[in-house]
């Protein structure tokens, strides 16, 4: 059985600076989404338990080929990548059709793993859209997965309750951030990652047109205005004085 995990390359958000309320993305290095690493780790653990094959899929600009090495080093066996610089900033519906078409090229898929949200967009749409295109059942916000033959027992964690579900394979699962501690690959794993098989696809291979009309348009994208006093406080005594002056103690 093949386990597929979808991972997105995103700009390293810790390095995005704000200038005149505009985010400066240019020159920021790419990385894999943090929660996508949780999805990968879940896949690695299941693959080790079940002896299956783990395939990472990703769609994005040409740099994905480099960025994805980390996933191959951390335990994925193969990568299927849809690469085109036109794909930068693509919307969720297009991402979903590309990923679904890619997954359809893979045989004997038992489980498709997503993160609950991508590092930059965090819209939580892509997994659900892919499940619909593939016509598969889905479980979101998953905190635990056990494979048992042709079924999976999956725990979905909602705000106020936990559901233990039994689902017929194949199934699409989106994992919660923090459900596991993603492993950090060793140097020798990183070296070997370059030799693992990669299937590079372009848009023609998938027979998917990029529609001229966008489903979503972005009118503006600005950092909120902040206006903080930024006073340095040197001691606990000064801190208490501040709390008193602001009326929070001694009211």
């Amino acid at each position, binding site marked *: 059985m093949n386990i597929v995990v979808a991972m997105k390359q995103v700009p390293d958000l810790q390095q995005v600076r704000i200038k005149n309320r505009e985010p400066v993305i240019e020159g920021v290095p790419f990385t894999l989404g943090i929660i996508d690493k949780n999805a990968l780790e879940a896949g690695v653990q299941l693959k080790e338990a079940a002896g299956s094959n783990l395939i990472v899929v990703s769609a994005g600009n040409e740099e994905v080929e480099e960025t994805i090495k980390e996933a191959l080093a951390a335990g994925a066996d193969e990568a299927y990548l849809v690469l085109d610089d036109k794909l930068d900033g693509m919307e969720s519906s297009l991402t979903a059709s590309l990923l679904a078409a890619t997954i359809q090229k893979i045989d004997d898929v038992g489980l498709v793993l997503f993160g609950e949200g991508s590092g930059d967009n965090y819209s939580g749409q892509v997994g659900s859209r892919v499940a619909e295109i593939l016509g598969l059942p889905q479980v979101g916000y998953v905190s635990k997965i056990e494979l048992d033959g042709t079924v999976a027992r999956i725990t979905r964690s909602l705000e106020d309750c936990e559901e233990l579900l039994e689902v017929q394979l194949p199934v699409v699962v989106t994992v919660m951030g923090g459900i596991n501690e993603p492993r950090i690959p060793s140097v020798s794993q990183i070296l070997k990652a370059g030799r693992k098989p990669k299937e590079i696809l372009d848009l023609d291979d998938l027979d998917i047109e990029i529609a001229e009309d966008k489903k979503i348009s972005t009118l503006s994208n600005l*950092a909120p205005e902040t206006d903080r006093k930024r006073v340095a406080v040197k001691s606990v005594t000064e801190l208490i004085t501040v709390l008193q002056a602001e009326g929070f103690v001694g009211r």
Partner: protein
Amino acid sequence: MAGILIYSEKSKLALELLTAARLIAKGTGLNIKILCINSDKQAEEMVAQGAETYHIKEQNLNLADTAAVASALQQAAGKLDASIVILSSNRRGKELSGRLAQKLDAGCLSDVTSLQVKDGKVQCARNALGGATIATQQIETDMQVIALAPRSFEPAGLQDSGSLKEMAIEIESSLIKVLESRSKAGDAADIEAADILVVVGQGMEQGDMVLAESIARALGGEIACSKPVATDKKWLPEDRIVGLSGKKCKPQLAIILGISGQVQFNVGIRDANTIIAINNDENAYILQMADYAMVADLKEVLPELNKALGY
């Protein structure tokens, strides 16, 4: 006439959607229909709020099966001629929104925190880049799916003219079986309602949590935390998390202890009136977004502060 269809499995959230839908209705002239699934109680409540309510009663429709619920909504949207579907962006709602949007070939925006209607278009605001920015976006397709972040709108007030109809739909057999459902032990605190929050992060030591709690109590506030404190360290329950995947809080005062200030955290606290931050790293970003910034070691500050507040 085309309309707006709203649905959430939680009555309180459905009422928030109703408020937003009334805003959209005012700007577009669309009428509002509300869907309930297998809940007489919710259906009655919605009628009492003046909503045109449709109730699907199908014991075989399993809320844990997102595909099935999306199919129910797709059928309802078709029967009721809805062009905008509004859901809540709680976990179930967010999961549902993508699946439904795909079925309807619709554009979809989730985690929407505010909206306005301009020239008949619904402009939605949502956090982007992990919360570093706020994007204003609109859906260009004929069908639209919008999922609203919980608590972004007040629950709707009473209105008359409510009505109730049952709706029949077709369902397929489900591939998902619920073996068990257990409620989470939430605690009584509501960090969104608190005037004062003491927010702790990974710079805390577990042994000092009692001090942070005591400081919160002395100030009449609640304790809250960054995500890893709840999810990795499990010192506090998840409903105390502040941030992008936690709660967006607007207290009068937030005292932030041992938190670095990454965007996904900041978005949950940047609307606080006054921010005090204590961190031993002078370059920690949180100090830049504080009104009062203290560079100090919590191990030393906390006992002293606790004492100064009278404990």
